[in-house]
């Protein structure tokens, strides 16, 4: 078997060739795994394997993103996991903190499965999600929503999006679409929020502050 003269003899041994082929196949398989992994781990089915996410899911099921007239349904990951294999994987690595918090909550608290705890922490979760939407220029919204296609039901909806939305990103105006309504961070008042949650769950005033301090 003759080899081309330019081929470095020393390198291309049979083992090396095997390694390249095997590595390539493994690599492709790994990529396929990641795609499937990212895909599966972006579904509500997966997300709600953590109990605390059931609360978020209940809200989601009442929202227009779940029950849209057009039949288009956004799943958890469509909004909360970036598009593209590397970005999606990175988001999942970052998102693993939720898993650790869930486990830690079960062991030492706070237990996010508890609807009261969950509601008390909801604002910070919302602020973090909004920061992410702002950081990537609402990229996940734009997976489905195309500016040129926004016509709306009212005559001027299209014009507002064309003219007045310039320099803004979707989440600047559109928030609180799916989960419990949380005010903007700038005008959020923890004190008022705690009192509201206490009233909602019939708790004595001050309970919320104690739960948050624990």
């Amino acid at each position, binding site marked *: 078997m003759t080899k081309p003269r330019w081929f470095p003899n020393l390198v291309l041994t049979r083992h090396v060739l095997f390694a390249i082929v095997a590595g390539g196949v493994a690599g492709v398989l790994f990529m396929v795994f990641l795609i499937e992994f990212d895909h599966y781990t972006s579904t509500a089915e997966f997300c709600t394997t953590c109990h605390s996410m059931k609360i978020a899911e209940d809200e989601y099921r009442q929202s227009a993103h779940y029950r849209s007239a057009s039949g288009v349904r956004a799943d958890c990951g469509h909004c909360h996991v970036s598009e593209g294999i590397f970005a999606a994987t990175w988001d999942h690595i970052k998102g693993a903190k939720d898993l650790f918090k869930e486990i830690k909550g079960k062991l030492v608290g706070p237990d996010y499965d508890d609807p009261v705890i969950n509601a008390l922490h909801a604002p910070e979760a919302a602020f973090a999600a909004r920061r992410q939407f702002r950081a990537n220029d609402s990229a996940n919204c734009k997976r489905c929503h195309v500016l040129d296609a926004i016509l709306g039901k*009212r005559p001027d909806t299209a014009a*507002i999006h064309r003219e007045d939305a310039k320099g803004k990103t979707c989440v600047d*105006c559109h928030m609180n679409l799916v989960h419990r309504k949380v*005010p903007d961070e700038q005008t959020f*008042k923890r004190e*008022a*929020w705690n009192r*509201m949650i206490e009233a909602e769950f019939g708790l004595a005033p001050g309970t919320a502050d104690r739960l948050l301090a624990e």
Partner: protein
Amino acid sequence: MTHLLRSALVSLGALVLVLLAPPAAHAAKVTLDRSHWGHEVGEKCTSCHEKASAGLTKQWQDSAHAKAGVNCMDCHQADPKDVDAITHEGYVIATVVSPKDCGRCHATELAEQQGSVHAEAVALIQDKIPALAHNLTGAAMEAAGCAQCHGSVVKVRGDGTLDPATWPNSGIGRVNPDGSKGSCSSCHGRHRFSKAQAREPSACVRCHFGPDSPDKEIYEASKHGMFYAAQRDEMNLGSDTWVAGKDYSAAPTCVTCHMGAAGKLPATHDVGMRNMWSLNTPVSQRQHLVVFEDGDKRELPDTVEAPKRGTEIDKGNGTVGKVKAVATPERRRQAMSSVCLECHSKPLVTDFMKQFDDVVVLFNEKFGAPATAIMQDLYARGLLTPQPFDEPIEFTYWELWHDEGARARHGAAMASPNHAWWEGMYLVGRNFYGRFLPQVREVAGPTEGEAIVRKHLADVAGHAWLAQPQRTNPILGYPPQPAPAAAGGAAP
């Protein structure tokens, strides 16, 4: 002597209060310079809003505010720390614009409005709401009924939204998230805030209408309303100054008499200041208007001596305030009458007021006071449960003073003979004799009932006719008795 001196001083104080207020013949001109408004960000709002809420934007664009350069943010700006602050398109705003917000420029109007019967309209009914709105109907009526006129106590929820049980609301005494009381847009419809619109009688009609306060109907049925309807185009409603007798003389509107400038009398945003009587109580009282140093006000019956300037008295809400001035009932009447004098002679005004006062006194003495005393007696004897409106007589008593009695008194005050009589005092009489007294006898039993009725009516001259059941009158078809045949005498 000291009493006289004190009265004189108090009157002087009231005089100063009434006459030396800024001699504004209209809503006081804003004296601030333009640097106080024209918020930089506020110029941008209309770009979206003329698309998203075109009507609202157009109203503002047509307003005096827009012409003067007062934009959305000048009124809606908020501090992030404000309880009702929200972030809107990246800017901190508040939905509710309170009198305090308007008062940043319209300081005179705010000072006058503060503590007025309008500003305190929530406190007026707060203890009645559970019995009326909640028991009789349901809490939904508080938001859709009571609070739409009197005002809601606006509640901001923990998520920054306004509780729909309390908002939307433009009730005149609305308790705002910033603690101020009132809603300027109750009369000055947003977002045009037109002078002319607020001077129209229709500005008052949303609330001063219907069985318990038919002021719209009374006004329309009066000569004043007649002239207004016929000569509305001569009212000069859009005029910058609006002094009765000077800028217009075609007709008076509600504003003219209760708030408007006339002669030397300045305009005021304290709509109850010129009212001498309390007309919406079981028994009307002549009232002092006590003004405190901090701007709060309190009505005090003139059965108590007017408090001295500088003394500290209960403000009526449990807190104590220092008296700044007192307007006696006489001063208040004088202020009201000075409006009349722009068109009427002094004797006419004095005698008209006498006719009005006589109706109030008649209602008080013949119906209001005895009915109230009888009810208290029935409660004291345990013949009625303390719970209001679970017994028919309680409705009868309530409507006697709150609806029919109020109509009669308002009708007399504003010169609608039909409201004073058929819609008012006639019904008071019919229901007093035809429903109330029979129900007293029913509740207490014939013997005790009769005793209660006698006890409370015996000294009231107006009821003496009941003791003459044989007297006749052809009104119901019963023929007059022939004159007793006198022996030889001829009937005159």
